[in-house]
């Protein structure tokens, strides 16, 4: 690991250091900088040639001068991994933050992570019950899925993420989840909120935390999620854990990505974000899944705050193209005082069909979910119409749908922060009860056989 120390820095620009006259340096190699005041900083090679090497410094370049010594460590970034990561809190660069001892590694894992061969993946199809009706019924989560929460400033996404972390379980199995929590640029207050909640429920012992806070170096955020996912992969595929990765806030991560791009004077894509942001995000999100022949799994819950509540902003947009659906938090519902304010209409789970139905949740799940959607969507649309023409102009069907939209929001979506609803008796039966507010002849999405079997007033015993 020892090597020459170079003092050949020519330029320093933002988080980047340029130096020349080095021996061949590998792309992606890890770098140590020793400042004249004795401080050490870490970095990584972003561009290398015979003439010039560009290093990205994780801790920022303040106090770096031309006398700074730069040492190339001859290896790419690796995280010491072991089973002992569970129950630990590490900083954004993988060093203990909880005052505990250094991790004694079983292995030094490359944090970039290789792509899973699509042929070696296993299709995710085990339903995860979150106990939240809006999610379980309408955007069902399955093990191995990546399902982001699209939120915005001032909305209770953290509560929802924590509630999921607390309540998530496989129906008919006592396999527990290990939570890997990755904080990127969140405030100390938000961080404390997470830690306290995990402590309160005893989940902290079953969690590994990687923490980069708002006042920690911004560039370090680029490696924090990679560390977290490396840990998750190790726990899942070497030790058979089912890992739930929560990372927040992806928006801060993307900002850091843009910062590096700007410092390198790259040609920007949309809104100044680098053109490779899609690929870069995919390198994180795609590290979810199941692998044939391995027991463990990685399920991801990235949280991102949409700047200006704009779902077409590049960050939610590119994420949506990679992840298997999204849970959209609505300001409108939040302001109506509904928790969890999940807007089921733009929310989606692409793997839902594989995880629900007979033997997994209940045979009528798909039908009920389609009917809820359709009725709520039409009811919501009618609200707009009523604002113009008044309720008098509506026919019987429209009136029922209009009323249903309110009932759906108040009774189905709304639940308390520690209410853990089971999918069958609580969530789906509740849905059936609410659907009695609409005449069955208007319930065209429901198969007759489910009406005969489950409809509270029309069923044939």
């Amino acid at each position, binding site marked *: 690991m020892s090597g020459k120390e170079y003092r050949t820095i020519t330029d320093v620009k933002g988080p980047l250091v340029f130096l020349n006259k080095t021996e*061949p*340096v*590998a*792309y*992606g190699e890890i770098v140590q900088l020793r400042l004249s005041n004795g401080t050490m900083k870490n970095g990584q090679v*972003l561009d290398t*040639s*015979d003439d010039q090497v560009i290093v990205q410094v994780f801790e920022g370049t303040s106090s770096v001068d031309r006398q700074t010594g730069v040492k190339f460590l001859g290896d*790419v970034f690796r995280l010491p991994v072991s089973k002992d990561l569970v129950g630990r809190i590490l900083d954004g660069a993988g060093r203990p933050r909880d005052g505990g001892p250094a991790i004694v590694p079983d292995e030094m894992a490359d944090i970039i*992570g*290789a*792509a*899973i*061969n*699509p*042929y*070696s*993946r296993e*299709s*995710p199809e085990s339903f995860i019950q979150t106990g939240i009706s809006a999610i379980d019924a309408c955007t069902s989560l399955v093990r191995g899925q990546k399902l982001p929460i699209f939120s915005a400033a001032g909305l209770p996404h953290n509560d929802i993420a924590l509630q999921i972390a607390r309540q998530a379980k496989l129906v008919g199995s006592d396999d527990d989840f290990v939570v890997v929590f990755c904080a990127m640029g969140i405030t100390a207050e938000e961080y404390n909120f997470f830690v306290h909640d995990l402590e309160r429920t005893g989940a902290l012992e079953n969690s590994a935390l990687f923490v980069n806070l708002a006042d920690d170096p911004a560039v370090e955020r680029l490696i924090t999620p990679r560390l977290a996912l490396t840990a998750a992969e190790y726990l899942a*595929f070497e030790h058979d854990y089912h890992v739930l990765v929560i990372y927040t806030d992806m928006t801060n991560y993307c900002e850091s990505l843009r910062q590096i791009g700007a410092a390198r004077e*790259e*040609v*920007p*894509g*949309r809104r100044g974000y*680098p*053109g*490779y942001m*899609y*690929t870069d995000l*995919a*390198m994180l999100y*795609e590290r*979810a*899944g199941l692998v*044939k022949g391995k027991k463990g799994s990685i399920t991801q819950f990235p949280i991102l705050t949409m700047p200006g509540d704009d779902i*077409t*902003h590049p960050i939610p*947009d*590119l994420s*949506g193209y990679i992840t*298997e*659906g999204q849970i959209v938090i609505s300001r409108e519902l939040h302001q109506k005082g509904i928790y969890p304010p999940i807007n089921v*209409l*733009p929310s989606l789970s*692409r*793997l839902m*069909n594989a995880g629900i139905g007979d033997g997994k949740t209940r045979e009528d799940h798909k039908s009920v979910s389609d009917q809820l*959607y*359709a009725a709520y*969507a039409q009811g919501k649309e009618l609200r707009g119409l009523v604002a*113009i*023409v008044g309720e008098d*102009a*509506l*026919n019987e069907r429209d009136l029922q749908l209009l009323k249903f939209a309110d009932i759906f929001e108040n009774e189905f979506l709304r639940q308390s922060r520690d209410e853990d609803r089971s999918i069958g008796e609580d969530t789906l039966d509740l849905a059936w009860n609410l659907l009695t507010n609409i005449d069955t*002849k208007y319930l065209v999405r429901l*198969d*007759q056989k489910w009406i005969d079997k489950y409809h509270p007033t029309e069923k044939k015993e």
Partner: protein
Amino acid sequence: MEVIPEKEKEVKKMSEENGLIYRISGPVVTAVGITPRMYEVVRVGDEGLMGEVIELHGDQSVIQVYEETSGIKPGEPVVRTGQTLSVQLGPGLLTQIYDGIQRPLEDLEETMGAFITRGVDADGLDLKKKWEFDATASKGDEVSAGHVIGTVQETETIEHRVMVPPGKSGTIKSIKSGKFDVTQTVCTLDDGTEIAMMQEWPVRTPRPFVRKYAPDVPLITGQRILDFLFPLAKGGTAGIPGPFGSGKTVTQQQLAKWSDAQIVVYIGCGERGNEMTEVLTEFPHLIDPHTGKPLMNRTTMIANTSNMPVAAREASVYTGITIAEYFRDMGYDVALMADSTSRWAEAMREISSRLEEMPGEEGYPAYLSSRLAEFYERAGRVQTLAGDDGSVSVIGAVSPPGGDISEPVSQGTLRIVKVFWGLDAGLARQRHFPAINWLSSYSLYPQALDQWYRDNIASDFPEIRTEISALLQVEAELQEIVQLVGSDALPIDQQLTLEVARMIREFFLQQNAFHDVDTYSNLNLQYTMARAILAFQDEAKKAIAGGADLESVVNVQARTDIMRGRFEEGYEERIEKLVKEMGKQIAATMEEN
């Protein structure tokens, strides 16, 4: 006879030409000390990673590398191969699943486990497997490029036709049937040219054919809205733009499953790993409605997920279309799905920005639209070199950021393709699937195809289609009024039009891809269903004129039965009877009043 060894020598000399890495920046590597040709394949670094030369700059050659480059240092070797990026074509392509540069994913799993590492080579075809070659040409035959000299039963349903490779011709000196592997000589020409079952072809060059025909046969997909309202011709091109969650991938998969092409090439370009896995696990279990055999027998897949190297993603669409052209040359109808071309364009953008090229719109390279055009232009129904008919239909998904199709990839695509299936987030939100907007979508093929429909389905097929789409247009106009005054304020005949249009939407246009029966409707059934809707309109009009009220006309049991019946087996046999029954019941509502 002298020519070939000369060439080999030349290749050998070239491949001995070694250079050195000068610079590495992500997937782009610059080398010095070699003088390769553009698009030549080179081996990079001590591990011999595969790369392709994409720019020559003084004494520097710029290479895009198909594998992860971290850990590679300047000063490591770069070796020329003398060849441009090529695919191996021959028996064994079908049922295969490749990455973007035709490495079989199954072989990669064997050599490197579940995670894709690097520096591993794999042949596109199994070079050891013996195939039963059945010679169809005989000694003394004059053959030229593209002529079929023999066949191999590649899968249960597909006969692989072994052709004389492009550029070769002569009189057959010897040819033999029997068991051979793909590299063994099966036929010798009198000038000494040896022909094996495998040929190689550079992916960026279109394969030759005699001429292109105008497309006049529809590609039948079993999807009602596509076949009936916006049909695609065999050899045609279609674009499916849509925001995320609007059902692009499901639509593509439906086409891959049900379209009546004989060969399907499915390119998963920069898409989700789990989604590819779903395709990979589902396809082998699906039964082709045309042959009754597994669909996989006619399918080749290319899976380059979003986190696999970006340069290989760029290459994947070329790999796919070259394989499609090869089957076309045998005289087959091939359908190629690319999901998604936006990811391909983004790969171009990423490479371009690493090359520090002057960007065009939104950072995409200025050559984006010409690349898109070149790609779609490789579609077509052609006369092959052997004189047969073959076609490649290309269906490209586009993923416009924010669903806004004014962006460069959508626009570049729409300028070329003849069919536009516009997906709509609003419809998807109402769970109206396929969420194809019937007002904004279009197809330029109906005129060319109408004769085919008249001859094969029904003489009034085009007229029925026009009536249906006219009703949808009228509905859109009426809806604007309804938004203002409510539907009760409309005159009764217009209320009826709304009901008919709703029937078109809910009964005809909506189709459940996950339902065993509803997932596929043949053209005859589509026609009958459309007729049933119009029959309802006619009967209802009569009844209302005779004093029946709209409510009871709409609620007759037989109409509900017709609508719900499409989910049940044997629907096709029953529907005519149900329509008659509906007529009777509607007539009866007159008497009630």
